């Protein structure tokens, strides 16, 4: 049995900035391989686990996508005993001050994103965000050692201990979207017990945070009949009121909007009802900003769903998630897949597409 908390811990603490997902990929491979018939990486580093269905060949296939890359930083210069850096992905610079990091030089170097103490700051300075040109990483090394250990282009990840909150929640970095990856593993595990006709590709995608690039090529390569992207959504938190907010512990949000195939969504909602799995609705008027946006337009077009696991404080080092929501997501994916058969294909208009 997969322990959701422990798997999430190992993936959250692993390193995998967009374009450099090797570290986290090997852990995901270890988790998925025993549950699948095949698990391998493609040219852009996507990890593709295949679990074959019980139906007769040629079988239809569904692709599940959750991205394994995380936002981070990259060394852009050495200045004395300090490092300059550039963000990789959507980093709010204001969340970086006083943050602990790991610089991936010739070895892993712990460091701090420097701040000046309040004693030497004016009120005016304290009212402004610290601009990028005044942000430095301090590894505590002297100039000579720093030059030996670190080069421009070296990656910098956030250094953050994964922590369980109140037993039911967990906090750490890169829950976006390692939580989604965990839900895919849970789905594969559930499919060990539940018969399914179709092939299932569970894909831990790369480079989502910088433009859905892993999903684009893996969807092309696999040419699935259906696609579901699992990502994180904006969980309710203090200080934010926005129509995009979804409820923590409310189950995965099934998106509504142009990114979503209406018949496929109706089927997902029916599955939730039948199986008594808590889900909610998230209305996304345009781009979902998820792998689903790329999946939908792969090849000749693929009926797509987007599930969002509620998450607080997205793109910070204290991303917080409810473990039950991850488990619900894994369960509903498995049940949805178990219901896929010839009738479903017809209902979703796939027969028509196939004969065209």
């Amino acid at each position, binding site marked *: 049995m997969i322990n959701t908390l422990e798997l999430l811990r190992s993936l959250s603490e692993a390193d995998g900035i967009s374009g450099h997902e090797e570290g986290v990929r090997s852990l995901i491979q270890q988790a998925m391989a025993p549950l699948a018939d095949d698990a391998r990486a493609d040219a852009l580093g996507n990890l593709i686990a295949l679990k074959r269905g019980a139906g007769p060949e040629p079988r239809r296939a569904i692709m599940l996508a959750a991205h394994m890359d995380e936002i981070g930083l990259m060394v852009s210069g050495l*200045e004395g005993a300090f490092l300059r850096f550039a963000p990789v992905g*959507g980093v*709010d*610079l*204001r*969340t970086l*001050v*006083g*943050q*602990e990091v790991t610089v991936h030089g010739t070895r892993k*170097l*712990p*460091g*701090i994103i*420097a*701040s*000046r*103490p*309040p*004693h*030497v700051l004016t009120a005016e300075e*304290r*009212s*402004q*965000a610290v601009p990028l*040109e*005044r942000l*430095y990483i*301090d*590894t*505590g*090394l*002297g100039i*000579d*050692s720093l030059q030996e250990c670190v080069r421009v282009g070296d990656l910098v990840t956030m250094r953050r*201990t994964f*922590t*369980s*909150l*109140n*037993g*039911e*929640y967990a*906090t750490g970095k890169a829950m976006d979207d390692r939580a989604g990856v965990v839900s895919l593993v849970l789905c594969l595990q559930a499919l060990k017990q539940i018969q399914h006709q179709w092939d299932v590709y569970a894909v831990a995608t790369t480079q989502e945070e910088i433009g859905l690039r892993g999903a684009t090529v893996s969807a092309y390569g696999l040419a699935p009949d259906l696609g579901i992207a699992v990502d994180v959504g*904006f969980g309710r*938190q*203090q*200080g*934010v009121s*926005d129509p995009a907010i979804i409820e*923590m512990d409310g189950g995965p949000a099934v998106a509504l909007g142009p990114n979503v195939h209406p018949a496929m969504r109706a089927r997902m909602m029916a599955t939730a009802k039948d199986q008594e799995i808590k889900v909610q609705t998230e209305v996304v008027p345009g781009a979902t*900003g998820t792998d689903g946006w790329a999946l939908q337009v792969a090849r000749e077009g693929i009926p797509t769903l987007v599930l969002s696991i509620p998450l*607080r*404080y*997205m*793109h*910070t*080092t*204290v991303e*917080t998630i409810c473990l039950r929501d991850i488990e619900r997501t894994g369960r509903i994916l498995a049940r949805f897949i178990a219901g896929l058969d010839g009738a479903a294909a017809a209902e979703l208009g796939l027969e028509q597409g196939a004969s065209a």
Partner: protein
Amino acid sequence: MNLQAFTQARGVSGNEGAAREVILKAVQDHIDEHIVDALGNLICHKRPRRPAPEGGRAPRIMLAAHMDEIGLIVTGINSDGSLSFGKVGGIDDRVLVSKQVLVGESAVPGVIGYPPIHLIPRSERDRAPDMTKAVIDIGATDKAGAEKLASPGDYVTFRGEWAELDPTGQRTVMAKALDDRAGCAVLAELLQGDYAVDLYAVFTAQEEVGTRGARVAAARIAPDLAIALEGTICDDLPRLPEDDTSPVTRLGDGPAITFMDRSFIADRRLLNLLLRVAEAKGIPHQFKSAVAGGTDSGAIHVTGGGVPSITVAVPTRYIHAPISMLSLKDLDHTVQLVQAALYALEGGLPS
């Protein structure tokens, strides 16, 4: 190492008990007696181990290092299970964003979150984060659930674990609360020596909220002179062309001697004595080259009929933030400097 244990003890101003316990354990074999006073100061007494030179009276010297650290305090529990908080000590709001904390005596983990960048208008991103609505999230989903884990008045510490960054070079370490567990570690180290002075080593309470512990401790001790041991501002970051400031101190350049800060003017005789022994012994040292911040010396020097005082500090980067950094080389040199000063003071304050 004392410093590691000292930094990991939790002790926000007014709640120094846990830090005091760890410190007492480290020093109790090297002192004659100790008391904990009404404000929670740990006052350790070490009598002269040798007669004063030329049969004079051994001077009564107070060494002070503050035990308390900056932190937060729970001010209320909200209906959604989150905790409202206030700041204890001087903290820049900008360092609170996206940090892990530990709440109350049982160290319940929590986080201070921030709205996702996706939902923040671009125009706001250049301004300091608005932390007026910030809360601590302990994973409780309603008020009753949160009340099981926390109460108003619970003290909150940052979670800043110890790490050694450059063991063979700069000997830098990082941890929370180096301001002023660095001073506490220096003082604990000094207590291992034997001096011909009547030594009062005081681990003070409530420095960060107005040097309140040092004030009452000095009133009790009525010392002939005092030295405050600190972890002080070290802002030796690279400068931009438009900056016309120089760093207050530099990491690795040795203990920082204060000639004046916002709370006091150093006693000239003590200042000269420190400079003299530093030069005689070849101990690296620097001035705290800005009139900024205040220390226990500010309270001590105006107690009773007045106490000649000075502050000597370990340069510490990122004080008053969740995690700070110093060089153990500087810490060792601070011990050496103050130790040499204590020997030089055995006959009393030079005129």
